[in-house]
């Protein structure tokens, strides 16, 4: 919560600051020894800023207590799936500069206050023990391994569950589609099947042949589907990255997803061809030929 607020504050401050810069275009900004700041690509583009430009930043919406910074570079913000729809208007300041900008001047400890401290452990496997140790030694401090679940993880778990539910319904629809296709495929050759039965082919023999064909079709279909998904992955990602001006990857087809698709599609295809052919094979051969 606090972290979110701080980011919001910085974002808000930057919006205000840039607005101030624009407003004071006629008033030259005194450069002096302006500290450096990195500005997100999106902010650079949206406000037509350039490297070397001087900007005035303030944590106060009225523009009070503003400070002048020089843009040293632009960066691509780390994509945040929780905020992908919001434009990444942000900047990176040196910590002392940010504290000087946002801290309460009447609070002597303001320059020594941070929202969080990132710790890199010698042995990352000790993260849980280390977090417990810190929490015991420093009451009131929240220490948490970066791998620990938080609200964000909860959000993605729910979204994943939602996607799974949607995928289940889609699968059901696909299964029906597949069954319809296979039924038609088999049905169209009912006279051939009837003839084969009449000349002495057993049901089992024909069923095996249909199953072999079904397996081939399912395999080709699965391969085509995966290929199509891979192409669509690029198209989707490009579209949404353009739409939201972010480097976030929206769609990623992992080997696990591919394996899942194969494990679902192949048996489904084979089952569909078995069901479809059985509906034909249980009929009398003469009825098939006579149609």
């Amino acid at each position: 919560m606090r972290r979110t607020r701080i980011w919001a504050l910085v974002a808000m401050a930057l919006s205000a600051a840039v607005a101030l810069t624009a407003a004071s275009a006629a008033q030259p900004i005194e450069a002096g020894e302006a500290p450096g700041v990195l500005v997100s690509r999106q902010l650079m583009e949206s406000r037509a800023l350039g490297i070397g430009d001087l900007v005035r930043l303030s944590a106060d919406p009225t523009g009070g207590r503003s400070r002048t910074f020089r843009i040293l570079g632009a960066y691509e913000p780390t994509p945040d799936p929780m905020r992908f729809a919001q434009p990444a208007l942000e900047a990176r300041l040196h910590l002392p500069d940010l504290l000087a900008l946002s801290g309460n001047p009447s609070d002597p400890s303001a320059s020594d206050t941070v929202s969080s401290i990132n710790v890199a452990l010698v042995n990352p496997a000790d993260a849980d023990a280390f977090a417990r140790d810190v929490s015991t030694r420093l009451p009131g401090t929240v220490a948490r391994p970066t791998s620990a679940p938080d609200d964000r993880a909860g959000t993605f778990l729910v979204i994943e569950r939602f996607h799974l539910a949607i995928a289940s319904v889609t699968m059901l629809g696909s299964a029906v589609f597949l069954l319809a296709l296979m039924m038609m495929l088999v049905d169209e050759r009912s006279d051939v099947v009837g003839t084969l039965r009449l000349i002495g082919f057993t049901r089992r023999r024909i069923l095996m042949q249909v199953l072999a064909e079904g397996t081939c079709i399912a395999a080709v279909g699965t391969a085509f589907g995966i290929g199509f998904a891979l192409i669509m992955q690029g198209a989707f990602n490009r579209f949404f990255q353009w739409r939201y001006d972010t480097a976030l990857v929206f769609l990623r087809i992992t080997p696990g997803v591919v394996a899942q698709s194969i494990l679902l599609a192949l048996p489904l295809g084979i089952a569909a061809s078995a069901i479809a052919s059985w509906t034909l094979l249980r009929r009398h051969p003469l009825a098939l030929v006579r149609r």
Partner: protein
Amino acid sequence: MLRVLRLAWLTSVRQPGRTSIGVLGVVAVGALLFDMLLLSRGLVLSFRDLLDRAGFDVRVLATDAAPFTGPRIVEADAVAAAIAALPQVEAVVPVSIREADIVSETAASQPPGRVQFIAADPQARPMWTLVDGRDLSAGAGANPPLVVNRTVADRLSLSPGSTLTLRGACGPDGSVLPPVAFAIVGVAGFPFDDAAAQTVAGRLSDIGRLCEGGMELGVDMLLVRSNQREGAGRAAAAIQALLPPLHVVTNEELVERFSRVQFSYFRQISFVLATVTLFFGFLLITVLLTASVNQRLGEIAALRAVGLSRTRVVAGVLCESVMMVGAGAILAVPVGLVLSVWLDDILRALPGIPSDVHFFVFEGRTLVAYTWLLGAASVGAALYPMRIVATLPIAATLRREVVG
């Protein structure tokens, strides 16, 4: 027309297996499409309903930052009085939100927790719905009054008459503040609470007891109810003209902003899935109809030879498509509604989602859009088989059928 329909019907039921599968496919596709249409506007509708239910249609903030994340409005009493004096405004309620830790609990075994403390004017119409006890305006004797939500009441076994001690979590840089004992006067439902939210409400004047500085630090938001004759838009414009530095937003604007930014994911996913689903349904019907038509080419050619016009046989194929899609579409609505309840339950488990917010909300226009989309899909799906029938060479087909 009736004859065309009857023949189309008889043709459809002639192959019950295939038709059933087609209808079943449309049911699956239709249900998903229906749900995606519900999802595309559900959150917006639900959010708007939630905002409207609070009884205020304009919100005044210090900046355009999200509510409760940005700077506060200072000298709130004076600002509220100035706004209230506008003829377009009926009422103004300053609201602040702070966090507080639970200090004393009746259930000792429970771990300490944190609550969200909503501070508002006790004389104004509350933004919560009282379910037990009294409201803040009634007062509570020695201790300041407090209304708690059901989660807090149940978790701490509180009821009107109990006492709850809170310690403000709003000191500068995390410093520890003195605890404050509150008298529970009522239990209420808060519109923006999620299932796990622990929310309490107290008087605005008591925020000073909980947090250092209190009202001097300003309020987070002013809730404004516009004069019914003027409407929210005019009230917002008048407030903005009166106090240009403040950010004034109507419920409509807030909904639009949320719809554009926060709810964007669901709009996008509903659009993508609706498109894919529709394409899928289109493909299914095209394939089924094409196969059906291909199997009946001889029959169709013979019908043409005995004098049935091209329009007549083409209309028959179109009717078959519309019938199959129509039957599936009708069955898909109840299936979609059941499915939407399931999907809604899944999504409402998202952290921070108010309990009263729904992702899938039914409205009349959803049904209209659904009918149009599936209608278009049924016509689109029939185009190719219709073309086959329309361009069918009668003599060649009859010859082929005899040779075949």
